[in-house]
């Protein structure tokens, strides 16, 4: 659990983060969104003390993050940034081993961890371990960047626009991979982005920052149905609202009893994608299959329309 308590950062008297208080639940994905200059990155960087706050406190599992030197704190918190920031003079394996080496793990444990992470990120250790970052594609570099952040098994992973430099197709894949890995490792992730689609796709909870202030902190659905300010409304986009609602939940959560013709959609597919499929194929309903392939019911156009409507 991360408790942010009245945190403020002033540069030359101007507050870039102004008295922000919020609590981040463990093992969740929290996304901080806002325009550039809203203070979202500064807020993130105060969690691992890359920026020291002017006032307020941040507690990790009840312990003040100033109770140890900044560098020791940062070794316990994963950190991944836009443009990956890999060390160009070190191999992929050496890059991933950065924090374990700083923590003086023994060699066998480091090697095992590196191999495990490379496999987890679908990079064959035999091929990639000895390569240098500039020999990798953008998507591979980004995966190594995240693997490095997770190497010391941190409970918390901070990510600053981690997918900002990727093209849309690789980005979608990276986002899906991140969710899988989060479920597997149970890491608490705090991610900063200005991309609302990304926020809705990844977040358990979204924090909206505007001019240094936290204007709303809630689930994606709350943000759509009950925006706290005009700014949140604009950020979400009025014409996008029904689709945002649909993109939060999966087909499995909209299943109705019965059967339908056509190719089954997976239960984990977002309702938004199912709607798109229904409209494109001109059908009223499609069957839904569970992960093991058994049919568990159908999703109807009418049912989705109801879910996309403004809650009364």
């Amino acid at each position, binding site marked *: 659990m991360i408790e942010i308590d009245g945190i403020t950062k002033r540069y030359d008297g101007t507050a870039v983060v102004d008295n922000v208080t919020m609590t981040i639940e463990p093992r969740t994905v929290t996304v901080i969104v806002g325009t550039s200059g809203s203070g979202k990155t500064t807020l993130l960087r105060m969690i*691992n003390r*890359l920026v020291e706050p002017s006032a307020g406190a941040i507690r990790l599992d009840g312990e003040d993050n100033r109770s140890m030197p900044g*560098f*020791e*704190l*940062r*070794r*316990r918190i994963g*950190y991944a*940034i*836009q*443009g*990956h*920031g*890999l*060390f*160009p*003079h070190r191999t992929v394996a050496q890059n991933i081993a*950065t*924090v374990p080496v*700083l923590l003086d793990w023994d060699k066998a444990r480091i090697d095992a961890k590196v191999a495990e992470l490379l496999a987890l990120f679908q990079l064959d250790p035999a091929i990639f371990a000895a390569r*240098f*970052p*500039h*020999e990798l594609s953008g998507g591979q570099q980004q995966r190594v*960047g995240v693997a*490095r*952040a997770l190497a010391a098994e941190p409970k918390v992973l*901070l990510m600053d626009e981690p997918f900002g430099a990727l093209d849309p197709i690789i980005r979608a894949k990276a986002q899906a991979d991140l969710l899988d890995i989060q479920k597997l490792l149970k890491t608490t992730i705090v991610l900063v982005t200005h991309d609302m689609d990304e926020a809705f796709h990844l977040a358990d909870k979204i924090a909206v920052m505007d001019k240094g202030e936290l204007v709303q902190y809630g689930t994606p659905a709350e943000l759509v149905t009950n925006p706290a300010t005009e700014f949140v409304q604009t950020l979400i986009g009025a014409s996008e609202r029904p689709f945002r609602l649909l993109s939060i939940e999966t087909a499995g959560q909209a299943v109705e009893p019965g059967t339908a013709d056509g190719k089954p959609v997976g239960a984990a597919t977002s309702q938004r994608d199912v709607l798109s499929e229904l409209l494109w194929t001109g059908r009223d309903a499609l069957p839904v299959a569970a992960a093991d392939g058994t049919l568990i019911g159908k999703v109807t156009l009418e049912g989705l329309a109801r879910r996309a409507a403004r809650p009364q």
Partner: protein
Amino acid sequence: MRAWLPSLLRAVLLAILLAFLISPGWFEPLLKPLVQDNAPAIYNQGSLLTLTLLHLRTVAIATIAAIIVAVTLAILVTRSFGAEFLPLSRSLVNVGQTFPPVAVLALAVPALGFGEKPTLVALFLYGLLPIFENTLTGLTTLPPSVMEAARGAGMTDRQRLFKVELPLAMPVILAGIRLSVVISLATATIGSTVAAKTLGEVIIAGLQSNNIAFVLQGGLIVGALAVLIYDGLSAIEAVLARRAGL
């Protein structure tokens, strides 16, 4: 065929240089036409090999001292506590570069007397500047995302310096050292005007006795040394730069 041609040329140059230093007599017929009737064509007031080694030693001592001081200074002024001296050190470097080497040498003589010492001081002072400037450039133009990642990974200031900043800046620092060595190799010859034992002795002896062969052999040895050392250091740099993916 083009790929190995430069290496071959270098090997040939090195072989000729070594042959000339070890047994200058072989080359006498080549230089004979340049001198008047009975003047010697090969420098005869000392061993060319010894002078070359002394020349290299002088340059090496001055360069190593310059590397230590320049890199340390550049590191200090790029730390947060030394940042105040950064603009001053930059302008000092600029001013220093306007001092001609002969002037530095001449001004060092009153303080240190004749011989090797003023030459060392002049070479040291003159060698400082390119190394300092390049180290500064190397340390201040590191990719911000890499520095951010290093801090985010929990490296201490010292770990960042030795594990990230210096290795990344190394190619640029080496380029400065290379420049400094080449300048020093040539400038060291001037040291012989204040009685330092370098290859400049050969050239000056040639100028005084109107013996072009002396001037030529002295100059060409220094030139060949400079080209070979320059190439060698360039090769090391290229390897490091490739490793660093720059």
